[in-house]
Each structure stands twice: as C-alpha cells, then as structure tokens.
C-alpha cells in the first residue's frame, strides 16, 4: 500500500514536472532539431535568457495589467463581499447571480461589443482598457472567495468591537479584513493570474507593439519559424517565472484562503 502510494506520487510529480523541465531544457539547447537530447546543455545556460530582449519591453505591460486588475478587483470585491455576507437586502440574489453569470460568459462573445465600447471611450490600445476588461472576470471570483471567508467570521466579533468604541466605518478595514487576509491573498493570486495570463482581449485590443502585454508578444511566436525554438522557450520561461514566484510566495495562504470557500461550497 505504502509502495503504491509513493509510486503514485512519483508518477504524478514526474508527469506534471516534465513539461516545465522540457521548457527549461529546450531553452538551453542550441539546435533542438539536429541534436536531440534529454538533458540541458550546461555549457549554454545563457540560452535561458535568450528570449529576454523582446520580453523586456512586454513584461512591464503585463505587470501593469496584472497589478491593475488585482487592485481594482480587490477594492470592489472587499466591499461587495462584505455587503453580501453581512446584509440582507433587496436585489442581493440578483447581484449574486450576476456575479456567477460572468463566469459563464464566453469572452469571444463580448469581445466585439466591448471593442465598440472601448473605441467610443478611447480605451482601445490602452493598457488601462485591458485592466478594465480583465477585472470584469477576475472581480466576481474575488467577491465569491472573500464572501465565503467573511461568512465564517462571527458577527459577535464586530458587535463587541462596536461596543468597545470602534466606529462603524472602521469595522471592515480594521476588524474584518485582517481576519480574512489568507482569502485576500488567494483572491489576489487569482486576479493577478487573470491579468497576467489573459490573451484574447490583449490580442484584439492592443495594436502598438510596444504596448503588447507578454501574452500577446509570446503568442506571436506561435506558428512562426524564424525565431530559434530555444529563444521561444526562454521567452516562455521568463514569462512564467514571475507568476510562479508570486504563486510560491503566497502558496501557503492560498490553501487556507480557499478553505473557507471550500467548506461552505
């Protein structure tokens, strides 16, 4: 039984890690087509950063979109989640449904109407426009996670804080928010990824090459055979690393942050 378990973990880990290993290995190899090998070329570790050139221009754009999406989503989500968790009000059900409904909406369906709206508002070809579009999909998930977390905080804590003289407006930022920080972290990662990864809006809205986020820049290598594959893989690696680092930093919090949402379902 024990052996089976270890074997199962090993197989899963190897299969899961292989594509990442292959990306790194390929990035170090000079001619992947002529000289096949299972191992990275340790004499050519410079290959790892071969894709840095164009990425340097695109990564700041991705960072802007990702951080913008995270901030905007969290600001609205904290308030909305608190309202959903603590108040019974008319329209609560409709609002909750609308949040969920965004997750069913194919981006491909709204990309054209959104294009028209952005065109009218001068948001086309603007990174801030991408922030707005991505927030529409990231924010509802953040509300959901935060609401489930807030549901688990007893109202009595707020009441006793009130008795102790905490003003009403300070309850959310000073009492509730610190208690749901793991869930804020989980929501932050999810919305950050939404902004960092997003491809469809980026590819249709952004015209100027210097304004491309890395997702669109990297996608321009798809089906293109001029750039050496090692360079492409290096660019993919450079695009992936910040997301993985951010994820590892908050990894612990994600599990506990999702717990509250998970238990209630």
């Amino acid at each position, binding site marked *: 039984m024990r052996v089976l378990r270890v074997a*199962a973990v090993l197989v899963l880990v190897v299969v899961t890690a292989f594509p990442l290993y292959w990306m790194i290995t390929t990035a170090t190899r000079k001619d992947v087509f002529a000289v096949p090998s299972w191992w990275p070329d340790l004499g050519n570790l410079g290959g790892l950063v071969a894709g840095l050139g164009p990425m340097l221009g695109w990564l700041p754009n991705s960072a802007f979109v990702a951080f913008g999406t995270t901030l905007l989503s969290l*600001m609205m989500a904290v308030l*909305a989640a608190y309202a959903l968790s603590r108040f019974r009000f008319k329209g609560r059900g409709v609002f909750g449904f609308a*949040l969920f409904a965004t*997750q069913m909406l*194919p981006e491909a*369906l709204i990309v054209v109407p959104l294009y028209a709206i952005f065109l009218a508002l001068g948001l086309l070809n603007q990174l801030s426009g991408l922030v*707005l579009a991505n927030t529409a999909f990231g924010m509802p998930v953040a509300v959901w996670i935060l609401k489930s977390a807030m549901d688990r905080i007893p109202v009595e804590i707020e009441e006793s804080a009130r008795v102790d003289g905490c003003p009403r407006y300070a309850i959310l930022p000073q009492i509730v928010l610190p208690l749901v920080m793991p869930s804020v972290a989980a929501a932050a990662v999810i919305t950050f990824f939404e902004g960092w990864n997003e491809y469809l809006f980026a590819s249709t809205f952004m015209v100027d090459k210097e304004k491309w986020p890395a997702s669109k820049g990297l996608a321009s290598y798809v089906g293109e055979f001029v750039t050496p594959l090692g360079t492409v893989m290096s660019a993919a690696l450079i695009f992936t690393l910040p997301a993985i680092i951010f994820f590892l930093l908050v990894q612990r919090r994600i599990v506990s942050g999702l717990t509250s949402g998970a238990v209630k379902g």
Partner: protein
Amino acid sequence: MTARRLPYLLIGGAAVYLALLTAAPLLTGLWLSVTDTQLLNPMGGVFIGFEHYVKLFGEPGFFRSLLVTLVYTAATVAASLLLGTLAAVLVNRSFPGRTAARTVLTMPWAVPTVAVALIFAWIYNNDSGVLNRLLGPARQGWLTDTDWALVSVTVASVWKVFPFVMLVALAALQSVPEELRESARVDGADRLNAFRDVVFPFLRPTLRVVALLMTIWSLRRFDIIWLLTQGGPVDATETVVIGVYRESFVNSDLGLSAAIGAVGLLISSLVTVAHFLLDRREDA
C-alpha cells in the same frame, strides 16, 4: 447614512462595473445575433430576426462543434477532477518530500496559458517533438491528425487546470477532523472504505462546486485551443467558442458569431441550472 442604504453603497461599485463591462456588451452581443452586422461595418447591421439561428441549426458543422465542445468539456472536467482529487489525497498525508511534491503538482496552475500552448506544441511536434521521439515507429500527428488533436488539446488543458482542483480539494481535506479519520481506522475499516465513508462526504460539496466551475470554464475556454490548433485540423477541435471567434475575426460575420455565442451561453446556463436543481434536491 442609514443601514438600509449601506449595502447598496457597498455593492454599488461592483454592480455598476458589471453592468457596464459585462451586461451591456452581453446585451449588445445578443442584439448583434439578430442582425446582419459585419466586422467592416459594425454600425451598419440591420435586424434580420432569427435567420442566423435558423441557419445554424440547419448546419451539420454546427452540431459537430457542439459535440466537440461537449466531449472536450466532459473529458477535461472528468480528468481534472479525478487527477486533482487523487493528487490532493496523496499529498495530504505527511511523507518525506511532501512539500516539494505539493509545490510541483500545483505549479502548472501558475504557468500562463500562452506558455502552456508553446510548451505542448513543442512536445507534440511531429518531426522533433519529444513524444514522437520517444514513440519511434508508433509516432502520431498529435496536433495534425484529426483522431488525436482533441485528445492532445484536452491533455494540455488538464495539465494546466487539475492543480486548481487539487488546491481546493486539499483545502477541503484539511477541514476533515482528525478524530474522524482516526476512529475510522480504529474501527478497522479498510482504507478505501474509510475514504468513501468518512473523508468523501467532506469533499463532496466542494467537488460539486469545483465540477460546476470547471465545466463552465471549459465550455468557454478559448486561448489554449486556439493557440494549439485554431480549431483544426479540419474541424476536429472546433469548439463553440472557437466558432464564435472564427466567424468574427476570420469571416467577419459578427451577427452569426454572436448567434453561436448565444447558443454557447445557453448551454452554460443550462448546466448551471441543472447543478443548482440537483443541489436543491440533495439538500431536501
């Protein structure tokens, strides 16, 4: 400020936001679906009633794309639920190297989709891809053979999304009280039974929600499919959402594109309604 107004102020930002950035484009999209709007003249569309819908339901190609969508969704959801739950159960116990194993298993979730597509396109590459090198004479056209393309796209998708199931399942597993599992072991229940009777009931509500999310996310997944195959070869991986994109940006037919999107949205809505009906029946 009265307590009656407070909740509306709190949701105000999010509500207005969703109205402008999702509801308005959605309604515009639904309107487009009953017009003959073209990409090159987006304001010049004329109302034509349900012509596009009639056309769609008379086309075998459309039914094929519905089928491809359902197969892709069912396979992706089933595989990621299974793998994600299995991985969560495996790393929930302590063993040497557990943290490292958990970290590796969750990592694909953080890999941007465009990077996933590039990596898998390279792994699947016909002539020099590692998969075909490994298989030698049994090599396949993973992305170029109509029999394999959907499988290959599904595998890449599952690799990317199963860690999400694992993370959520792991969170749920940690809510299983230790005494409960202890008592199951003392009672001599064998492992599998103990899992089914003691642990699974804790996981079930979570897994059901994750299954719904995975389903509606898979129904509308665009980027990984488009970047790997663009719906091809022929129409082997042409899902509904790929069709929406193709009609808009390749064939410039915004009206038809919106009609396909509306049908896709209807399917997602039906799945969601079914989920909540099932939920209610089980709760009752």
